[in-house]
């Protein structure tokens, strides 16, 4: 049962992603992205990361995707006609080349993953033996909160400053040009 659900999520995510990259209509593609994000969030649950899954849905679906939709609508007029262009140059990358590179990566990554499955890293084996892996019953939210406030306080602060900078930067980039 558990495995079937996992495969279902995985299939949904990968299939939606494939459909997304091959979709000509941008609006539909964005909604497919929405499905991908949900499916990935589901996958997180199987990794016993429920808080990450919630955050994924909140930030991506609530923030990123809405932003993307706004941006799409702001530049929509050009998009349709751009779909038909794409003159091929000497070094211009035809789709099959991108496909080739992507497929190669896929092959390598899958190969590495399977190889890692057969002889997994020592620390994972040690963790399995010591029983320090996360259990489904553990309260991860409390632990994450504790860890952020203690062990990862410095990265947390750095990220917060970075977010601040990103916000200011985005605001600066999008402000209207002053007409002198």
């Amino acid at each position, binding site marked *: 049962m558990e495995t079937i659900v996992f495969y279902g999520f995985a299939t949904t995510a990968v299939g939606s992603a494939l459909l997304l990259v091959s979709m000509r209509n941008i609006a539909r593609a964005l909604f497919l992205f929405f499905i991908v994000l949900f499916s990935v969030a589901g996958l997180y649950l199987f990794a016993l990361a429920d808080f990450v899954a919630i955050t994924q849905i909140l930030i991506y679906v609530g923030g990123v995707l809405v932003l993307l939709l706004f941006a799409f609508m702001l530049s929509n007029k050009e998009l349709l006609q751009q779909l038909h262009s794409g003159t091929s*140059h000497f070094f211009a*990358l035809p789709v099959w080349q991108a496909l080739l*590179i992507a497929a190669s990566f896929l092959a390598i990554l899958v*190969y590495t993953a399977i190889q890692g499955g057969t002889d997994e890293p020592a620390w994972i084996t040690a963790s399995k033996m010591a029983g320090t892996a996360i259990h489904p019953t553990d309260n991860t939210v409390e632990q994450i909160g504790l860890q952020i406030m203690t062990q990862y306080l410095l990265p947390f602060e750095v990220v917060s400053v970075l977010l601040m900078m990103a916000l200011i930067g985005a605001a600066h980039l999008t402000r209207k040009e002053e007409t002198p």
Partner: protein
Amino acid sequence: MPAYTLTYPLLAALSAVLLPFAAFLLTAVLGKKAKHGTISIVAISLSLLAAGYAFTQVWGNTPIHIQWHWFTIGRHAFHVGLLLDNMAVLMLVLVCLIALPVHCYSIAYMRGDPGIHRYWAYLSLFCFAMLGLVVADNLLLMYICWELVGFASYLLIGFWYTRDAAVQANKKAFIVNRIGDIGFLLGIAILHSSFGTLDIQALFGPQGLLTAPMGADTPAIAAEGTITSGWLTVAGLAFFLGTMAKSAQFPLHVWLPDAMEGPTSVSSLIHAATMVAAGVFLLARVFPIFDDTTLLVITTTGTVTAFAAAYFALAQYDIKKILAFSTISQLGFMMVGIGIGMYHVALFHLVTHAFFKCLLFLSAGAIIHGMQHAKEKHQLDIDPQDIRHMGGLRRHMPLTFTTMLIASLALAGFPFTAGYLSKDALLVHAFEWAALHGEAAIAIPLVLVIVSILTSFYIFRLLAKVFFARPSVLANNDIHIHEASRWMLAPMAFLAFCSLFPIFTFHPLNDGQVWLLHGLVAEAPTLPPLRPLHILVPALATAATLVMATLAWRWYVNGHYPIRTKGVLYRLSERQGYLNELYDAIIVRPLLKLSLLLLWIDHHVVDGAINGMATAGRSLAGIAAWIDYHLVDGLIRLVGNLAWGAGHVLRRSQTGRVQQYVALVFFIVLVILLYHIFAQA
């Protein structure tokens, strides 16, 4: 030892030398403003005064010598200085004394000439050069002045440079003089390489390096240098060669008759005291250098010259040419005087000859001047110098006739004249010398006697033709020849006085009493006297003179002319022994042909070689240019093109498209990953 302080006699001599030079510079600067010639006359007058003062101070005393360091070549220091001994001051006074009347005479004679300012400048330069020559204390300085004399004479002979004959004459004089200058220079070089000094006193003074072996055949040995007898002979001959050209000795005398193309006043200066005297003076200066061989050569040459010139003078028609050959002949006498070792007598003859020859020329100039005026006035087609057109001038120009007569008598060696004293002394000494040198040597005094007789003949021929003969052209036209002006007559009168005996001796018939001869050299060389000759020779000469005068009178005045003018001997005399034609044939024409040949060689061989080299160079340069352009540049261009091509290929990768960059990044990452995987496997 030479003195280094400038005493009054030295100062006087120096100013006597430099004043004409200053006059020359001033006249040259002033140009046409200096036509009156006052500057030159004042300068030569002051020179005469200064020279006279120096003469009174030095004559009979020890020589004064001053020198300053001039320059140094290697170890040899060269000096410039003055040497005032009896010989120098005598010449100093003589040159000034002759130059001053000539200057005065020139005022009248050259009046109205368009280039007269040049004339004064040249004349001053000429005097400066000659005065410098006589006081020079070393041979180098003397040589410089010697050349200056030659150059000034070149300018003066060619003074009327628009006349082709004058230009030819001054070129001829200059070129012939060059031959002599080479001799002089060679002599200087030999002496300098042998002794390391050119100082006249050090070489020829009483204790000089060359005085000891005089006349001996042994090599001269001196502390500072030696010279072998062979080189001594060569050096002596070299100096004599210089003299031959300058003093117009046979066969280099050819320039002197031609030099008559210059103004007559210049001729008188050249012939009397300056140019030709320089050679005799030089020989007297360097006399100790001559060994027996050289002296014999000098004597022989002098004799030949005297005879040839006297012979050539016989048939000349140009009044100045007669006088010119007379000069050459008298110079031959002086050479004989030097050759027999009696150089003080030669110098004495030089002095007396200076006066009467100058006077002869000035008188001739006065005649020519008169003839020229008559020619212009009456449009006569005559040569004013040709004696055939003259005649009967005694009535027209009595004063000129008087001076000319005095000078002629002096030249002929008539008693009571200065010429008698010097010339007969020379003759007597020649006989005495011949007595010492074997039977063959007697030929020389005998020839000289013949020359003396010829001299009397040609000068009386001149007198007869000019003053006594029946007027040829002038008679028909009722032409009156004017007596010369006062400016011309005064110098002539002065010189006429100097041509007589009183200023030399109070005993008119005995040359042994002449003060000049006693004071001229410290230790006068002597020959064993032959007493009878002292009576016999003058008596004979005087008798011959009288006979010749009568003969000339009979032939030319009374018209009893016995000689065919087409005879070989006559023509030989008239054409001056065909020497000019000979030189023309054997020297000038081959030289011209050689020059043409050299021109051809120069044009075709030398230029051709150079052109060939140039062409070769150009083609070489062309090859080099090709190599440079195609190989060297090509290599560099290849590198550049390679870089450009590489850049051109690589710039294609810079498409500016983000996705392609990303693709490249991922491709490289992919390659790295693959590498790791395969490296692990």
